């Protein structure tokens, strides 16, 4: 008991609390404290009084230090290394991971399904829109061609009408020859405009076969001049413009090889008309 008192009086306990001892002395003090409750109590008293003394001499750090320090601890909270000593891998951790995984898997599954459904709907939508577009394009094309037809027809009729309006046109009716007595064809000719038209709508002549074509001739000073070939069938209508000529005494139509001849085949003369 006397030894303990001497030990306490030596001042080693104060130095121990102040961290002012060698590792050997430290181990010794700790061993003594475990063995003797009175030393432990003495140590506790010294610690308590120095702690209070520090409290009396406390200096408040600046206000923003609190956040700074706590943030640096929170950052360290997220650091895996700080957990190693304090926490061991428990069942708790093993359970948490699969639950999180299952949940995130589900989210991806639903997201994928939603995306896939959207894709299907989009493709269907595109397909129907494409069909409608195609339909519209066809309609536009047919309308355009119809429009073209009308334009052509209007142009043609305009020209036909022009023939009748224009006083320079002379009308000549070609009469059928002995070869084809019933044939008849109206020719309109404007010497001023050098224009020759034939009226297919009111023509009455036998239809030509596919090897032959009718050829129109103008007689200029007794010589035949080619004015072009034409077909006659039941569907031909409207007026047809032939090659131009400035002067003519007479017009005649012969039946020639398809494509026409350089000189008329006189024995195939179908119609003739003179001024």
């Amino acid at each position, binding site marked *: 008991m006397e030894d303990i008192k001497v030990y306490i009086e030596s*001042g080693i306990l*104060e130095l121990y609390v102040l961290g002012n001892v060698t590792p050997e002395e430290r181990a010794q003090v700790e061993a003594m404290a475990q063995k003797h409750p009175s030393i432990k109590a003495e140590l506790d008293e010294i610690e308590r009084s120095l*702690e209070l003394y520090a409290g009396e001499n406390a*200096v408040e750090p600046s206000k923003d*230090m609190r956040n700074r320090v706590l943030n640096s601890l929170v950052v360290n909270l997220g650091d895996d290394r700080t957990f190693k000593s*304090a926490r061991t891998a428990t069942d708790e951790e093993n359970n948490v991971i699969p639950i999180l995984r299952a949940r995130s898997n589900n989210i991806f599954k639903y997201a994928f399904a939603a995306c896939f459904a959207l894709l299907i709907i989009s493709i269907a939508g595109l397909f129907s829109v494409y069909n409608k577009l195609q339909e519209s394009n066809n309609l536009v094309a047919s309308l355009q061609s119809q429009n073209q037809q009308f334009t052509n027809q209007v142009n043609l009729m305009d020209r036909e009408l022009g023939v009748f309006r224009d006083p320079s046109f002379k009308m000549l009716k070609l009469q059928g020859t002995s070869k084809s007595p019933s044939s008849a064809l109206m020719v309109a000719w404007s010497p001023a405009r050098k224009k020759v038209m034939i009226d297919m709508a009111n023509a009455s002549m036998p239809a030509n076969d596919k090897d032959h074509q009718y050829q129109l001739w103008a007689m200029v000073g007794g010589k035949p001049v080619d004015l072009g070939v034409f077909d006659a069938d039941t569907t031909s209508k409207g007026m047809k413009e032939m090659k131009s000529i400035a002067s003519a005494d007479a017009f005649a139509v012969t039946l020639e090889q398809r494509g026409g001849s350089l000189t008329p085949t006189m024995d195939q003369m179908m119609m003739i008309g003179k001024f």
Partner: protein
Amino acid sequence: MSKKRKISLSEEELVLALQRRENIAAEALYDMYSASLFGVIVRIVNDETLAEDILQDTFVKIWNSFSSYSTEKGRLFTWMVNIARNLAIDKIRSKDFKNQTKNQELENNVTFIDEQRNTVYKPELLGVKDLVEQLKPEQKSILNLVYFKGYTHVEAADELGVPLGTIKTRLRTAIAQLRKYFN
């Protein structure tokens, strides 16, 4: 920062919470001990900015190596203040710090800083005047050298020009005086 009420726990509660690494433990730890630890650190390094860095390092070290503390070794504050004091002493003995304070002899500042501190902080500290009167000047200087300046008792003996045994005795009587005062 909102003005939060400072958190305070009993030492047992705090130690348990720290062992469980609860966020509230970090806050309580700071609120309960930052000023006491800062008082020690700032007296050792004599530089407020540097002391703040060391205070932060101290809390990080306390937090990260808390598993090495056990209640059997003694009070929590004793363990923490030794961490703070060692970090501060390491700093002032480092090359950086010596270069920084080339012309300042640490010894010359010892009394000056404390006088400055006392005039600045005295009004906030209840009972300090009584306490100062309780301690004899030689008790106060040895306590301050060792506790607040980080001197070893050997360095303190050198500084004060007294034998090592006298240092130990003075330290013991100074602490005994504190015990009497706080009881």
